[in-house]
C-alpha cells in the first residue's frame, strides 16, 4: 500500500478505536450522530454532488426507513436487535425512491428539486394521518435493545464504512463516470447514447437505500420517532444539503467533514452560547458560503490546486 493510502487510513483507524478510549455516553452519542450524518451526507452527495440531481426531499427516504424499522417492531415482525431491519429500511426507501424517481426525473434542475420536496412533504402528512400504520402524530416508541452505546457506535461505523466503500467503488466504475457526465451536461450525455434516466435512477436508488438504512438505524438507536422528526424538511432535507455543501459537494471527504462540523458546532454553540445559538449557526452558514464557496474541503482543494499551478507557472517562467 502506498504511503498516501496508509495516511488516509489513519483517521479511519482512529475512529474505529474511539469507543475503546472513552465510554462516556454523551461523547459517544455525538460520535454516533456524526457517523449517521456522514452516511446521510455521502448518500445525498452521490445523487447531488456527483450526478447533479439536487434533491430537496431526502427526508422522504430517511423517514420511510425509520418507519419501516419502527412498524416492523411495533407489529411484532421483528425485534429491534434485528440487523436486517436496516436492510429492509433501506429497501423500502429504495422502493419509494423508484416511484419518486419515475415521477420526478422527467423534470430538470429546480423543478426536480422542488418536486422531490413536495413528495417528501406529502409523505410526512400521510405519516401524520395514517394512524393505523404509523401511530400518527404520537409516533413510535421502542425500547432500545442495547444498553451501552458501543454496539450502536459500531453499527453506525459499519454503515458509514460500507456506504463510503460502495460510493467510492461506484464512482470508479463506468456508471460513476456516467453520473458525472449527466451532471455536467445531461443532453450531451444523452446524445452520446447514455440512458440518462436509467443511471439517474441507479444513483437515486443507492442514495435512497443508504439514507433509508440510516433512518432505520435512527429508529433503533433513538427509540422514538414521529413524522415531524424523521420527515422533517428543515431538520433533515435541508440539513443534509447544508452538511454536504458546507463540507464540499462532489469531494471525497466533504460530506464527512461537513457532518462532523455540523454535529460538533451545533452542540458547542448550544452549550456555550445558550439562547442565541441558532443565530450564530445561521451566521456561520452564511460565512462559510461566502468565504468557502465550494465548501470547506472543496475550496481548500481549489486553493491548493491554484497554488500548485502558480508554482508550476513560476517554475516554467
Amino acid at each position, binding site marked *: 500500500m502506498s504511503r498516501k493510502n496508509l495516511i488516509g487510513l489513519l483517521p479511519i483507524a482512529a475512529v474505529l478505536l474511539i469507543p475503546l478510549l472513552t465510554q462516556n455516553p454523551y461523547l459517544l452519542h455525538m460520535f454516533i450522530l456524526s457517523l449517521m450524518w456522514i452516511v446521510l451526507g455521502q448518500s445525498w452527495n452521490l445523487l447531488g454532488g456527483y450526478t447533479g440531481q439536487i434533491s430537496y426531499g431526502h427526508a422522504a427516504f430517511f423517514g420511510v426507513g425509520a418507519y419501516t424499522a419502527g412498524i416492523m417492531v411495533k407489529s411484532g415482525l421483528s425485534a429491534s436487535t434485528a440487523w436486517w431491519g436496516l436492510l429492509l429500511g433501506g429497501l423500502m426507501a429504495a422502493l419509494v425512491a423508484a416511484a419518486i424517481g419515475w415521477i420526478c426525473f422527467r423534470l430538470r434542475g429546480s423543478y426536480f428539486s422542488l418536486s422531490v420536496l413536495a413528495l417528501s412533504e406529502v409523505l410526512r402528512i400521510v405519516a401524520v394521518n395514517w394512524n393505523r400504520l404509523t401511530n400518527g402524530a404520537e409516533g413510535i*416508541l421502542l425500547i432500545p435493545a442495547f444498553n451501552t452505546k458501543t454496539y450502536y457506535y459500531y453499527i453506525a461505523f459499519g454503515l458509514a464504512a460500507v456506504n463510503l466503500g460502495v460510493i467510492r467503488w461506484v464512482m470508479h466504475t463506468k456508471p460513476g463516470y456516467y453520473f458525472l457526465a449527466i451532471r455536467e451536461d445531461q443532453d450531451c450525455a444523452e446524445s452520446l447514447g447514455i440512458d440518462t434516466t436509467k443511471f439517474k435512477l441507479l444513483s437515486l436508488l443507492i442514495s435512497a437505500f443508504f439514507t433509508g438504512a440510516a433512518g432505520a438505524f435512527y429508529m433503533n438507536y433513538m427509540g422514538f420517532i414521529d413524522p415531524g422528526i424523521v420527515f422533517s424538511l428543515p431538520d433533515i432535507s435541508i440539513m443534509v444539503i447544508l452538511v454536504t455543501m458546507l463540507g464540499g459537494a462532489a469531494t471525497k471527504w466533504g460530506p464527512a467533514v461537513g457532518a462532523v462540523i455540523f454535529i460538533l458546532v451545533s452542540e458547542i454553540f448550544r452549550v456555550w452560547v445558550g439562547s442565541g445559538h441558532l443565530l450564530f449557526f445561521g451566521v456561520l452558514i452564511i460565512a462559510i458560503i461566502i468565504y468557502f464557496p465550494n465548501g470547506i474541503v472543496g475550496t481548500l482543494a481549489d486553493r491548493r490546486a491554484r497554488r500548485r499551478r502558480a508554482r508550476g507557472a513560476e517554475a516554467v517562467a
Partner: protein
Amino acid sequence: MTKPRPMQLVTLALLVGGMSASLLLAQGKTFKVGVPLPLTGAEAKFGEMEKQAYEMAVNEINAKGGVKGTNLVLDIQDSGGKPETATAIVEKFITIDKDPIVVGEYSSQCSYAVAGVAEKYKVPYLVVTGAADKITQQGWKYVYRLNPPSTLYNQGLYGLWGTVGKPKSIALLYENTDFGTSTSRAMKEYCEANGIKVVLDEGYQAGGVDFKPILQKVKSLRPDVIYMVSYLMDASLLMRQSKELDINPQAFIGGAAGFTLPEFLQNAADASEDALSGTLWTPQVKYPGAKAFFDNFKAKYSKDPDYHGAEAYAAAYVLADTLKRAKTWTPEDLRAALAATNMMTAFGPVKFISWGKFTNQNRMETLVLQVQNKKFETVYPPDAASAKAIYPVPHWRDRK
C-alpha cells in the same frame, strides 16, 4: 482572496466570551439541577414562561436559605423542542455533570424521550408538563410526574356537565400532535361511553390561517358542543372565525393549552368571551401561594402566567422538598425521597400514587375556566370557583 474575516473573528470572540462567562459559576456550596426546555422553536413561548417560573421559585428558595444551607442553581438548556436534543442534553447532565436528578421539559415527546434516558441510567426524573398518558404507563421506577395526564384534563369538564347537563352531541377538532390527539381521544372515549354522539372527529395541522371551511362544516352538523384542542394560537383563530360564521352551539370548550393563554384573550378579543376550557390551574384556586405566585410573576415579568408556569414553580418546590428529606443526594436516595413526597404547592397537592396503568403519577382535580368580561374565571369545581358558569353561552348576535 485576502478578504478580512470580521465575521469569523466576531464569532470566535463571542464563543470565547460565552465560554468564560459560563465558567464563572457561583462558587461555594451549590446544588445544580439540569432543566431541559424548548427555548427556541415553536414552543419557545412556553419554554420561556417555565424558565421564568423556575427562576422565580429558585430565587425565593435561596432567599430563605436554600436547602440545608445550600443554594440551588438552575442549568436550563435549550432542547429546541427536539427529542434527540433533549436526550443529548440529559445524557450530558447525567454522565458528564453527574447530576443525581433531572427536572423539566415541556412537550410530551421530549418528556417521554428524557424519561426513557433517565430510567436507563437509574436517575430520578420529575416530569413537569408533558401530558401524554404513556409517560407514566411504562412501569418505570425512576419517572415521577407532577402534572395530571391528558386523560384527566377533562375531568373538571365532566363534573361541570354533571351540574349543567350533558350535551347530546359533540364535534371534536384537534391539532395533529401528540397532545392534541391523545387529549381528544380521551374525550371521545368518554363521549362514547356516556351516550354523547360524536358528529365530527377531525385533526388539523397547526398553524392554519383559515379554519372557516371546516367550521362551516361543523356548523352544518349542529352539535351541542364544539370541543377543540390546540397548543398554540389556533385556539384564537377558531374562536374568531366561529364568531364570524355565527356558529351557536351550547358551548365552545377547549382542551387547555392555547385556550388558557393570556394571548388568547388578546388575539381573540371579544370572540373569546364565554369560551370554556378544561385547565389544570387558575390563579383563583385555593391552594396556598397560588395567588401570590400569580401576582409576583405578573409583577416581575409583566405578563400573566398560566398553568404551565404554575407547574414549573411547583416543581422547583417539590425538588427543594425532596432534597431536604433525602438521606443523601445520590440518585437512589433522591428517588426514594421523591417517591415519598406528600406536600401542598401553589399548583396543588403533590403525591405520587399508582392506579390503573399509571405509576408514580400525581393525581389532582382538574378545573374548568371560562372567559367572562375579558378575564379568566374559574367556574368548576365549586370550591375553587370564582364565578358561576354561563352555560349555555349566548348567541353571538345577542351579545353586547
